[in-house]
């Protein structure tokens, strides 16, 4: 099944959370990548029928998603918030989901879903006694209980320990391979590229990039990088660096050098060699804009 977004926008008063996004999510695993506050949850909520688009349309195989409870036969949703009744046991929670879906054999479906997320052993404990990762898995089990062709997960790896994370990643990958349409949101590139075949990047509410992880990775590393360098002789180092084309610009300041590296890889190799040849001792080399925000803002500036 396909989720199609056509020129979807969402604003709250004067604040634009999602701005004119058009994308199609098809079978396989798609990662929705973006920094916190980029509008990922807003977009996911619109796909899940929990938010009306202010403009544009969201459809699932051609049918309108908003105000249409029938879509939940085909959609499994794993929300970011806890959203699990603490007073129910894991078994009761997943069984209730199966019954709410009106499945012919709810107990069998619940058992199967709990087995899929490896939660059979603690299933008779109350959810409130679970760790965050266990709650997450029980939520995934409840979302999978009716074997939906579409699965939407909002920041599913948050709060999971590495082993649980690995397990959920395997599960998501295998469901994607089996032909389900899976979309998950994340602000961590490594997470997304390990699981998703297709990556959609959202920055400041805009659809900044699309592609497989190789394309996205290249976009992100081949951009200009800014380094702050302090050395034993800044002026000498500046003069030597500017001779190479990988250094796009060098600014000499009272507390060191700011170097704009046009080609990341080449510059990373160049710097130590030049310093050595010139006999300059490097005290500090730090990327000035390595946080994800600046990576994303580069992407968004590039796309405008």
């Amino acid at each position: 099944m396909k989720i199609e977004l056509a020129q979807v926008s969402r604003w709250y008063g004067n604040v634009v959370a999602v701005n004119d996004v058009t994308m199609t999510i098809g079978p396989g695993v798609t990662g929705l990548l973006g920094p916190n506050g980029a509008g990922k949850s807003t977009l996911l909520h619109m796909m899940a029928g929990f938010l009306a688009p202010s403009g544009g349309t969201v459809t699932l195989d051609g049918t309108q998603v908003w105000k249409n409870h029938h879509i939940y036969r085909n959609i499994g949703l794993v929300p970011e918030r806890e959203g699990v009744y603490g007073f129910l046991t894991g078994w009761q929670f997943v069984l209730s989901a199966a019954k709410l879906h009106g499945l012919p054999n709810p107990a069998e479906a619940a058992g199967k879903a709990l087995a899929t997320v490896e939660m059979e052993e603690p299933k008779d404990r109350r959810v409130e006694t679970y760790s965050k990762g266990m709650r997450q898995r029980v939520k995934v089990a409840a979302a999978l209980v009716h074997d939906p062709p579409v699965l939407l997960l909002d920041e599913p790896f948050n709060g999971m320990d590495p082993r649980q994370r690995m397990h959920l990643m395997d599960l998501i990958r295998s469901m994607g391979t089996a032909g389900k349409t899976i979309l998950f949101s994340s602000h961590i590139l490594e997470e997304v590229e390990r699981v998703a075949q297709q990556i959609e990047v959202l920055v400041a509410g805009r659809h900044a990039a699309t592609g497989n992880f190789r394309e996205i990775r290249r976009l992100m590393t081949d951009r200009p990088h800014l380094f702050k360098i302090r050395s034993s002789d800044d002026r000498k180092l500046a003069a030597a660096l500017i001779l190479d084309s990988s250094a796009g610009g060098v600014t000499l300041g009272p507390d060191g050098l700011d170097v704009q590296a046009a080609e990341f890889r080449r510059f990373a190799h160049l710097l130590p060699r030049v310093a050595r040849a010139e006999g300059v001792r490097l005290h500090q080399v730090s990327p000035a804009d390595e946080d994800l925000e600046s990576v994303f803002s580069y992407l968004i500036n590039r796309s405008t």
Partner: protein
Amino acid sequence: MNTVVAGITYRALLGRRRILLLLLLPLGLIGLAILLRVVGSADQRSAVLLMDTFAIATMLPLLGLIAGTGVIAPEIDDGTIIHLLSKPISRPVIAGTKFLVAASVLGLFAAVPTYIAAWLLVRNEDGIAFGFAIGVLVAGIAYAAVFLLLGVITRHAVAIGVIYALVWETLVGTLIQGAQKFSIQQWGQAIAAQLSDSPFVDAKVTLGFAVPALIIVTVGAVLWAGLRLRTFSLTGDE
């Protein structure tokens, strides 16, 4: 009516210490009735006074608030409502089910204790016990609907509900003549007065106004709550 939704709602509402909150006022009512009996004031006048001032005017709005908002507001607050809403069940059915849970809880925790308290004082004299029990039940059903709606449309349901229950129903409803027409407890009172022959039971609203008003408010509030649930939105942290 969806039995799974009802089951989860009953457990959420009655589980843990919540049930103590629901028991407190009815036990107080029965306790007062026993006290009146012990001190020898078990007559129609004091029975009706207890029903008027405590059962209908104090206990019922507060229980209505606890039950009516309690069936939905906590779930909206902590996001668990998504578990019910992300299923192929029509939202008005979910709202209707939650209303029935709240109404039935009010029947058990408000109408039954009202009957017991009045019966302890005057047995079945002049239909006082029966009249007030039905009055409380019917008004309780209307409260369940109104407070359910409040729980759906605002995150501040309890605060607004307390102001409504105390200021409007208790102060304005009993003091200001015109406002009494638009008070659920006065409508319940009208039903009680109709069913009881006691000279002490009086109503400030006619039955001809109270019955349609109760029906319109109840049905309207449940339908509105269902419509609001259809457009229930997750706004997220962004």
